[in-house]
């Protein structure tokens, strides 16, 4: 398969892994954060930890949109969908994320009209097909998905589709990275920069990380070879005492980003003064709201939103895991109260969530190693 197989070529992967071992040496420990949940998923799916030397530690970052969403927002969205004749539409990613009274799928089982859509424009199509219902699209995602939400709203406005609205939970990546760097318990050497977000925002927004924080960052693709090459590039910078922004994912990411997509975001959205992130708390100017030109298509303005705030269970340590302070299995609930079948935090739900990825792909492997070392 083109664009896939050439980035999974075993011989090249082995060579790149050798280069990583050579550069990493044995003297010191390297802590690199992969910001994006897609990278977290790839690391586990391809078993990259097995081929990296032990002194390279990958820390999972906050770039999983459903994981950083506070439970109260899910409750708010579901509360709107309880209104008569409302269809709740969302990506498959959202469907198993628990609210206080259960996930959207569980609400569906109890009779709520919940639909999985594959793009915001599918939700708009649903609205056209159901003129006597109101379709509310529960929008999630970083700058990656925000443009398609924006374009859909522009189309709804242009076509005058009035039985459609968006419950906007779009967040922005840069303030989250800043919050991580400002966190006192965080020690990081470098960043593997998000790939898909950067197709939209480009590489310039990361320049302060290199300039002010003196941390190298390499925007990376999602195939095994992409990620290993990015680690090589980071190690080269660290060895040379440099800190710059580099783009490994040039085949997809333009340095200046996607201007058309950025224009669509600017047309429809404005920054919220602050937004609550699960585990990271309130971060100023870290999320998007729908601007007044599109108020008619803004679910938060059309419906009475309860504004529910839910504190996570005390024992759950989602925040520490999200910030990379704790590994998933170091949380007290991991694999006991909190499993993919009965998730307590969203990190255990999304396949991009580090807990789910660790649970699905890794932790029995870890148990196996410790067993064999006892034997």
């Amino acid at each position, binding site marked *: *398969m083109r664009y*896939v197989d050439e980035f*999974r070529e*075993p011989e090249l*992967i*082995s060579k790149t*892994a050798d280069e990583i071992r050579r550069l990493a040496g044995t003297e010191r420990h390297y802590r690199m954060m992969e910001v994006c949940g897609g990278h977290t*998923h790839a690391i*586990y*799916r*391809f*078993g*990259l*930890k*097995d*081929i990296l030397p032990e002194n390279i530690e990958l820390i999972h970052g906050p770039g999983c*949109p*459903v994981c950083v969403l506070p439970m109260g927002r899910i409750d708010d969205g579901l509360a709107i969908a309880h209104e008569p004749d409302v269809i709740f539409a969302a*990506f*498959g*990613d959202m*469907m*198993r994320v628990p609210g206080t009274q259960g996930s959207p*799928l569980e609400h*569906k*089982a109890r009779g709520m009209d919940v639909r*999985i*859509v*594959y*793009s915001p424009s*599918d939700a708009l199509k649903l609205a056209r097909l159901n003129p006597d219902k109101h379709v509310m699209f529960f929008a*999630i*995602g*970083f700058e*990656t*998905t925000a443009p398609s939400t924006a374009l859909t709203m522009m189309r709804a406005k242009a076509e005058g589709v009035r039985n459609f609205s968006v419950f906007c939970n779009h967040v922005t990546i840069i303030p989250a990275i800043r919050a991580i760097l400002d966190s006192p318990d965080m020690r990081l050497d470098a960043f593997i920069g998000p790939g898909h977000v950067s197709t939209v925002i480009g590489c310039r927004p990361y320049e302060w990380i290199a300039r002010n924080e003196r941390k190298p960052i390499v925007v990376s693709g999602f195939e*095994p070879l992409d990620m290993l090459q990015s680690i090589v590039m980071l190690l080269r910078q660290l060895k040379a005492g440099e800190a710059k922004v580099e783009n490994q994912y040039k085949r997809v990411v333009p340095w200046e980003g996607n201007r058309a997509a950025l224009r669509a975001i600017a047309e429809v959205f404005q920054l919220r003064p602050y937004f609550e992130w699960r585990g990271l708390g309130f971060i100023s100017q870290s999320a998007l709201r729908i601007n007044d030109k599109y108020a008619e298509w803004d679910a938060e303005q059309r419906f009475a939103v309860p504004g529910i705030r839910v504190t996570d269970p005390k024992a759950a340590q989602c925040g520490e895991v999200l910030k990379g302070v704790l590994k998933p299995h170091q949380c007290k609930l991991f694999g006991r109260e909190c499993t*993919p*079948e009965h998730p307590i935090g969203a990190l255990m739900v*999304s*396949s*991009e969530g580090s807990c789910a990825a660790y*649970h*699905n*792909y*890794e*932790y*029995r*492997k870890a*148990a*196996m190693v410790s*067993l*064999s070392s006892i034997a």
Partner: protein
Amino acid sequence: MAHGAGGKASRKLVEGLFAPLLFGAAPGPLGDAAQVDIDGTKVAITTDSFVVKPLTFPGGSIGELAVNGTVNDLAVSGARAEALVVSYVLEAGLPTQVLEAEVRAMAKAARDAGVRIAAGDTKVVEHGKADQMYVTTTGIGRLLHGVTIDPRSVRVGDRILLSGPIGDHGITILLARGELDLEADLRSDTRSVLPLVEALIRAAGPGIRWMRDPTRGGAATSLNELARDCGLGMVLFEDQIPVRDTVRGACELLGLDPLHIANEGQFLAVVSPEYADAAINALSLAPGGGEAQVIGEVREQPAGTVLVTTLYGGSRIVDMLVGDPLPRIC
């Protein structure tokens, strides 16, 4: 709802409710068919209900699935289907030509599979109380000589065989629903696997330990059940698992794992190592078995787990499916 998707929730429902209340104590590992002793004659018996949307899709329809599914459950239990009984639940208002087309599809599938449809029943429910039509088939089968299927007979070093490419059926259905703006030249793999199973038994009968047709929940779920039942590790070699490029492409795009996608015309077998070559040769020569592969082997560790290894030395655990496979977008 997750209880129907063939993964963990389904298994919990069976083990936690049905088995203890209906089958009495300690039914042993759950297979695709049961054996019943009637006056000293053992027969295999199984049943399956079919619910699929849309009713017809490239390569097949609910009627064909209902025949082949039950024939296959018997086949991988080491039995040849002799007779089926069929039961329909129909939604009032279902066009008669739709029903007729499915009945014709069943008759043809039964002829192709060499099985008789011996009896049937029909119920009609109010419009809106069912989704078009549901079909249940129950089959009895004659046990095939020269093979014993028992997950507890699986040993370290045994080879894991797969009869052909996985994921065709599940991805075909996903695309046929028309909710994704994706098109692919792909057909469901629905077919009777009995001829392949018989070829395998003739060539390697004494070496066969276990067989299963990986329908809902996919190959990963079947192998996880086996790993649990025998307490050993199933180690798969990723580059040996046959998957068509169209299926791989769709899975890459949607964030799905082909190992979790349903199949309706493939089966997995565990064979002792000395019979592995004979088994693959026999399957390869049989019609429709040309893509059969050894995809892995049984190891002591990781016990009770399925591990996929890659050519470059990475590995990952593949668990049972939790709920339906949901595409990942954001």
